[in-house]
């Protein structure tokens, strides 16, 4: 065992990378849940985004095209969920599970020809002067575009929810859909748009795993990241800023256990691999004391009778 081989700077730098997929997916789900919809299909949308992005990037040779395709793939899949829950008024828990089961199968089917291929590399954004700062440089300024896109998205969603009219409408729909409907807001339309946004974000998160973090395609490669993203939203008490904190926490745990595996700690690898899931449970337990923050209409079916 050689703990000295773990470099704190590299650890923090890879933490930012490990946090990005769950951050993207959780931010999307945050918007969905703030509109009052519980979409348990994040895992399915992520894995679909992962393969859509991977396939598009390999075919076109451009990782950028890959991310666009991933967002589209995730959004299209989430449209199925939107149809089920907003038009056919189906149970949201069951529909979300259906989406995950379907997405896992669909991605395996689509990914058959892509096993063992390397995707085109995503260029790192080496910011000239800032990247050369010792310690802070590699941690903060030596990443790919998507890391900063995730951070930017986090700030944008926070500002949107807090300061804009659109954010206010979204929250109104999520807190009390009957009141929002009475005020003349289009509840179903707002929710469908939120679901599509959530799908696109989950797709991006999935593509980040298959194009940058791993980078290759294997079946079921998201390995529960979508579910961790769902837990993250609860952990964050439905606040954008706290999603970022949570994503860093989970990213940190993941990276740390990988480093411990590499350093040859005396604990078997399997037990170390359990740790992100166990930490998720632990955090859920701690956070579930405070349930007051959940959007009022979360998971309830809206059917306008008037």
């Amino acid at each position, binding site marked *: 065992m050689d703990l000295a081989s773990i470099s704190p700077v590299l650890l923090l730098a890879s933490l930012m990378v490990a946090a990005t997929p769950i951050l993207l997916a959780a931010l999307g789900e945050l918007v969905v849940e703030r509109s009052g919809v519980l979409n*348990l299909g994040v895992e399915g949308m992520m894995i679909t985004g992962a393969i859509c992005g991977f396939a598009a990037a390999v075919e076109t040779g451009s990782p950028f095209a890959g991310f666009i395709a991933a967002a589209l793939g995730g959004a299209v899949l989430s449209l*199925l969920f939107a*149809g*089920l829950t907003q038009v*056919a*008024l*189906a*149970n949201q*828990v*069951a*529909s979300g*599970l*259906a989406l995950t*089961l*379907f*997405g*896992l*199968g*669909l991605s*395996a*089917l689509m990914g*058959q020809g892509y096993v063992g291929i390397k995707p085109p590399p995503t260029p790192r954004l080496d910011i000239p002067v800032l990247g050369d700062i010792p310690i802070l440089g590699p941690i903060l300024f030596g990443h790919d575009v998507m890391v900063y896109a995730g951070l930017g998205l986090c700030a944008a969603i926070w500002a949107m929810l807090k300061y804009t009219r659109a954010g206010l409408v979204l929250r109104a729909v999520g807190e009390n859909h009957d009141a929002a409907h009475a005020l003349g807001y289009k509840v179903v339309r707002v929710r469908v748009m939120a679901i599509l946004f959530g799908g696109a974000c989950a797709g991006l998160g999935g593509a980040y795993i298959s194009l940058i973090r791993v980078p290759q395609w294997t*079946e079921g490669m998201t*390995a*529960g990241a979508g*579910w*961790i993203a*769902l*837990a993250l939203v*609860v952990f964050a008490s439905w606040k954008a800023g706290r999603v970022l904190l949570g994503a860093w926490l989970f990213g940190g745990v993941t990276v740390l256990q990988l480093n411990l595996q590499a350093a040859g700690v005396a604990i*078997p690898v*399997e*037990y170390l*691999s*359990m740790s992100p*899931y*166990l930490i*998720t*449970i632990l955090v*859920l*337990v701690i956070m*579930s*004391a405070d*349930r007051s923050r959940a959007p009022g209409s979360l998971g309830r079916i809206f*059917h306008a*009778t008037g």
Partner: protein
Amino acid sequence: MLKLEQRPEPSRLWTYLTPPLAVAVTMIAGGALFALLGKNPVEAIATIFWEPLFGEFAFYYGPQLLVKGAPLILIAIGLSLGFRAGIWNIGAEGQYIVGAITGAGAGLAFYPADLWVVFPVMVVAGAAGGWAWAMIPALLKVRFGTNEILVSLMLVYVAEQLLAAMSLGLLKNPDGFGFPGSRNLQQYAPAHNAELVAGTGMHWGVVAALIAVIFAYVLLNRHVLGYHIRLTGQAPRAARFAGVRPKRLVLFCLGTSGALAGLAGMFEVSGPAGQISIDFNVGYGFTAIIVAFLGRLHPVGILLAGLLMALTYIGGEIAQSNLGLPAAAIQVFQGMLLFFLLAVDLFTNFRIRVIRPETA
């Protein structure tokens, strides 16, 4: 203009009609998918649904129906109790794995003793393992109000790692030349869950599944606990006034479904699978969710849905070898089934009215 009108109560006719309708729509959509993959859709659908039952090798595939159906039914029966009460155990796959580990572990602890008591002990250990694994989300929900969906699901990934650790460590076959995986229980007679009648696929797991169906039917229709489960699902507030204790219901529903999933895992590892190995679990715990919904959360419905889903597994394997249909296509097919079922369920709860726009 079309308008949805909520029915005062769910339509009985549509309740029975929606599962076959969903299957029919899935066949059409699935056929389209298979056509996209360059296969003859009619042939593919016929291979999946006809071949295992009436084809040339039906004598071989028929028994498989029971072997594959039993774990699905056993798990789905347990899940349906919770689903009815709005308690979502999504982690049956994890409970299935842990039940297999504890069941096989108990059996292997006796190796090579030749005692009749070994198998009963394994049954108890398997059920207890699944039960204990399900008690984690149950107790956390009761004590801290933690979301049982997320906790039970996270525990699936933990269980998968535990399975890997067991097949590489504690339960590894000492005579296995270093290969991962436990001793084969099929070669240890007292622990072998053998066919009860040769050539039928009938093993103790099938018996347990049938008992579970009857037990669930009696519970839901004739017992006050079953009434409380149904009441909680339909009107949680009224249930509390009626004296239902929601916490006990959570413990009961999650515990029962965990124990049944654990049993399914134990019967699988001691019979058809034979040994604990890294890739022991094949997703029965997740497919059982589809089975539970397709069976309308009704014990008899689940029995039929479980057999149908087993058919798609077997037919899928045949289509894989005969037509070169990818295994993932069957997974998509099963996923679609749940989708269409949820979609056509609209007709159960709502009436579609054609209304003319009113003129002022």
